[in-house]
């Protein structure tokens, strides 16, 4: 049976105490929010912090509010269940976020896992998400180069088994909520012992399986998520996974759209998840200022699928996953245009036979 390796436990009560504890722990310290990602990783010895700073007693991390300008602030310590059912984000504009949160793993994991934790979720790979003995048998990998892999960004040795000649790690960004929040134009607050700053969600990430959170300093605590008031917007989140009930995404498409008079697109944001080591934002200039016709959607979907370069390190065949990107972009935009669900299902059925 897998056991959690020993560590020193610190339980701050305030955000300031947490930030100080994280600074004092240095590179050996890690934050524990819901624990649904870090604890399995620790049991498999993928991550072995010597100091664990538990955030469950920090009440301020669960505070949420709507500001005078209509923008919504969600505490990073809010569970995914509470995120999905928060009245502050009940509007259709925020559906990408609430759908994404409600599609993370299982109801149990959603009740435990937090919004901030999901944004910081470790990247995933078939060669990394295995127990210690399995990884030992392949002489470990670049991301967790044993004997007690630490997945720290300083480590530069080890082989990437996905692309053995590659200088970088190709583990996949598998967070559901990040693509959704990027599509909603959200920002996060990062607090350290020296102060705090607010940055766009997208700027947290770098396309590198190990240094995927390059936009957050190691001594910073992600404390809150800010979603702007999105008057007139609609959004959605499409997730591809093998089991409809319970799996990490192997593709996500988050899309947000504002349609003006005559169905002309006034604003559009589309983000892909799980096809790189970070969420990928797609430029939408070609959509804006025109009606959302079938032709416009098709041309945009071709363009959107280009940056997606799935590798052979997660579920499904990679060339099929690449094809589905296009179909999912089409489906998401048609849904936002208001196409009836039956039509969407027929469109999805075009790619599904490949599953067999």
């Amino acid at each position, binding site marked *: 049976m897998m056991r959690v390796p020993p560590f020193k436990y610190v339980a701050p009560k305030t955000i300031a105490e947490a930030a100080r504890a994280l600074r004092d722990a240095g590179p050996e310290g890690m934050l524990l929010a819901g624990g649904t990602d870090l604890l399995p990783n620790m*049991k498999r010895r993928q991550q072995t912090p010597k100091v664990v700073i538990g955030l469950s007693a920090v009440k301020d991390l669960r505070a949420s509010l709507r500001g005078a300008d209509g923008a919504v602030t969600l505490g990073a310590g809010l569970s995914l269940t509470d995120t999905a059912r928060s009245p502050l984000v009940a509007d259709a504009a925020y559906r990408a976020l609430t759908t994404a949160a409600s599609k993370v793993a299982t109801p149990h*994991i959603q009740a435990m896992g937090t919004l901030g934790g999901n944004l910081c979720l470790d990247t995933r790979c078939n060669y990394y998400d295995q127990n210690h003995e399995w990884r030992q048998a392949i002489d470990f990998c670049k991301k967790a180069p044993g004997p007690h892999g630490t997945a720290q960004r300083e480590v530069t040795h080890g082989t990437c088994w996905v692309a053995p000649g590659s200088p970088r790690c190709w583990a996949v960004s598998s967070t559901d909520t990040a693509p959704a929040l990027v599509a909603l134009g959200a920002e996060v607050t990062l607090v350290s012992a020296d102060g705090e700053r607010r940055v766009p969600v997208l700027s947290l990430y770098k396309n590198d399986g190990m240094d995927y959170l390059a936009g957050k300093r190691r001594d910073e605590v992600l404390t809150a998520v800010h979603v702007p008031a999105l008057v007139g917007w609609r959004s959605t989140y499409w997730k591809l996974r093998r089991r409809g009930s319970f799996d990490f995404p192997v593709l996500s498409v988050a899309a947000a759209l504002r349609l003006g008079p005559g169905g002309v697109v006034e604003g559009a944001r589309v983000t892909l998840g799980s096809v790189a080591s970070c969420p990928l934002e797609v430029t939408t200039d070609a959509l804006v200022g025109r009606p959302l016709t079938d032709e416009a959607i098709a041309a945009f979907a071709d363009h959107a699928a280009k940056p997606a370069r799935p590798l052979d390190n997660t579920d499904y065949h990679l060339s099929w996953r690449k094809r589905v990107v296009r179909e999912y972009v089409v489906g998401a935009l048609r849904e936002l245009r208001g196409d009836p669900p039956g039509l969407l299902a027929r469109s999805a059925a075009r790619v599904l036979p490949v599953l067999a």
Partner: protein
Amino acid sequence: MSEIDVGLEVNGEQVRARCQPHDTLLALLRYRLGLTGTKEGCGEGECGACTVFMDGEAVDSCLVLAAQCEGRQVTTIEGLGRGWPDGLHPVQKAFMETGAVQCGFCIPGIIMSAADAITRRSDAAREEVRRLVAGNLCRCTGYTKIFDAIELARDRVARGEVRPEA
């Protein structure tokens, strides 16, 4: 690493327990408190055999540190029937009557999730019941009788046929 002291409520009783900082809630329940009804299956949050209520919500106790439980309220399968006739929760009774149990290892976890589900959604149709217990795996049954039992309990509670004792 030195042991820590954790105070929490388990099945209605205040408990103080010594444990290691790296002990899970599951280890605390099974090995420090002797509450072995809660099972350890996968240990990584997939199978749900270790499901307990924490502050009223079903969680995987294998992924909660005991240290995180200071001041929290935990209910295990041993305490689920408290306050119900014969000390059995309607879901437990329905599982017995329906024959929903084969080897039984997953059952304490499934019953906890099911009890949480029918409390939250007394009108849940089968698809919703399936979704609410998606975090519990059973390798024996095929789930049909498990869902039958959950629906039986749901209907009995909804119709007021079984109520908690005053």
